[in-house]
């Protein structure tokens, strides 16, 4: 059941409630989960951990999530670059296009169901999702 075992995931978001359920769910799926509440803190964390997946909020207290997106995508992890999932309340095509242009792999607008985020992570990491009981 620990489908995300050995996957390093960093979440950068300033809302504690979001970080709370991300931690609960991703740790339950076996991921090595880390979190930061600011863009600069998140970048430092990513440089140290070299994550497989970064969950990035756009409106962060110190600076725009966009500003660190290119740096995140440059983190070299021998085999592949980290997957960056943008998580934001900005339901706007303009921002979505901008995020994609800067290298984001997925763009999810808040509020969202955790299954959707997990599915995107499975998809981007090439993991077959386990059968869900209906």
């Amino acid at each position: 059941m620990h489908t995300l075992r050995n996957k390093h995931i960093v979440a950068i978001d300033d809302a504690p409630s979001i970080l709370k359920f991300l931690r609960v769910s991703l740790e339950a799926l076996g991921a090595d989960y880390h979190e930061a509440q600011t863009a600069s803190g998140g970048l430092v964390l990513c440089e140290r951990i070299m994550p497989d997946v970064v969950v990035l909020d756009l409106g962060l207290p110190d600076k725009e999530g966009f500003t660190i997106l290119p740096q995140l995508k440059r983190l070299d992890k021998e085999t592949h670059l980290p997957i960056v999932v943008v998580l934001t309340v900005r339901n706007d095509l303009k921002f979505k296009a901008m995020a994609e242009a800067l290298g984001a792999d997925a763009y999810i607008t808040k509020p969202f169901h955790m299954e959707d985020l997990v599915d995107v992570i499975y998809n981007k990491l090439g993991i077959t999702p386990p059968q869900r009981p209906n």
Partner: protein
Amino acid sequence: MAPRMQVLAYIEDHPKAIMVLRAARARAQEKGYAWVAVYLETPAQATSADQSAHARMLRLLTLAQQMGGETLHFETQTIDEGMRRVLEAAKDRLCLCVVGSTEAEYHWRFWERRMPSWQRVVRLASTYTPVETVPLSGQPFVRSLWRWPNLDSFRLRHLLYALLSVGVAFGCAVLLQWALPPALFRINSRNVALLFMIACAFSASRFGMIPGLLASVIGFFAANYYFIPPYRSLQISTITEALDMILFLAAAVLIALFTSQTRTLAERAKRREISTQALFMLYRIASDAFTHSQALGKLQRTLTHMLEMDVAFFLPPTLSPDRIEAAFPPDLSLSNGDTMALGTCWKEMKTTGLASPFNPGSAWRFEPMIAPGGEIGVLGVRPRKKHQLDPWYGRLLTSIADQTASVLEHIELERSMEATRIREEREKLRSMLLSSVSHDLKTPLAGIIGALSVHQSLGSRLPPARRADLLETALEEAHRLDSFITNILDMTKLESGSVEFHCEWHDMGSLISQVTKRLQHRLRKHPLTVHPVPAGIEVHMDVMMVEQVLQNLLDNACKYTPTGTPIDITCRLDERGYMVEVRDHGPGIPPDRLDKIFDKYARLQKEDAQIAGTGLGLAIARAVMEAQDGWISVANHKDGGAVFTCCLRQWRKTESAPLVQIETPIEQPIAQACIR
């Protein structure tokens, strides 16, 4: 739209100048072009005292207007220079220039042999456009060296003053005669003549030519009759004395004539000054005024004073642009004839009324005010009694009307630009508010949906403590969402004025404990200290509203300060009223945001980076406090953290103590006892 082609008619002061106008009109009509009569006035003509030449040119220009042409009349240093300016300005739409040719030949001016002015104009115009000359028979009007001064300003009482000045001279002469021995006086009879000469020069310079001439003639006879032997007779005994008297008369008459001419020129200079001042004033008003009525009111007062005429401005009402009505002064009453002249002026956009070719019977003269952007209104003047509305005034009024029109248009443009700017700003603010509100609503919602979705999908595999954690997060976020929605609704209600305040006497201590009890859950990460409140004091307030203010302040203190930092609530009395202070120990508020923090739009200047639900709480707090005649302020504490102070002005001692107003000085012992 391409500019309409033009035929230019150059006119000079000539008895047959009308032939030039007719030729120009005929050429223009053949091709369907417009035509313009041009009259250039050189300084020599402008300052000349020859009124008949002015009158002739005015008639000619008026005639040109009646014949359907436009007129162009301006002053220039030389004919050549003025013509070049006209041709340059019109060269793109100029197709023909009509000039009257006279029999005037080369003439000598000082040492220089000059072409007649029409030939110079032909030579100049032919470099721009085809020129047609119209032969004019007869000699042009010759302007003599001497010109009759303006007789318009002649008044009967001026003759009396002239007689009076002669009388004074006479008195002085009698005094001289009385004081000197007869032999000595006889030798001094020339000085007597000089006394009368002074009277003559004074009358001429002060009152004009006719009083001056009168003074010289009366002076001549008085001197002869009383002071030249044989006395009391007009006879003259010696040739020397006869010569003296003849020379006196000649000198006096010449002095009268030339002094009065100088006076006329001085008056013209004064008028020039008036027109310069009037136009300058228009520019100044243009830069000062913000509204039409402000500008027109000021212009009307200043022009009335400066022109010494009644001045009125007429504008079309906003809803029916065909009509025109008095704008300044608003209570002006016009006769039927005046109203008709005004209507014609507005409908046909031409000068009407007094001393104009249209409706000349009116007591008013109306000038249309036309700006580059279109017609603006009408300027009306009514000369006061005996005041002549001469061509010079006509020209001044036209330029004042034009300038006023540009001033008004300028103001209008500025206002519409300002309005557009405000509209854009408001639109921007509205969309920012919308995105901010949607952010504030969606962030807690994201927490709720996320936590519940995790609980739903993974719940069975999570340890019970984690499940409880998730539910608690969802609940917390739901509370936050609730308080935010409440804030939005409250703000809307406060702004629309639909909130009623029910103020009553209430104890602050119990109110604070109510609020802290309700916020217990949120306050558990921040140790809260409520310092003892002043005992035996009641405050006049709306309990529900003040509770909400306190709740918002405590909410903010929790949200913006690091976990574990304490919060203090202190109540005290001072000369301003009952104060409630909420102090946190967080990072404080950046000094540049201190004055904006209560502004509803303050946080719009930031992006969605801020913690949700923070936008309106302080704006509501301020609105609530002000609605109860109180206030709220914020400052940074010198030992760190922000201090919010709420003031309620009305408080009293319990047991039905009298109401204490802010004006009443507070008794010292009570104040001291109340401060912790």
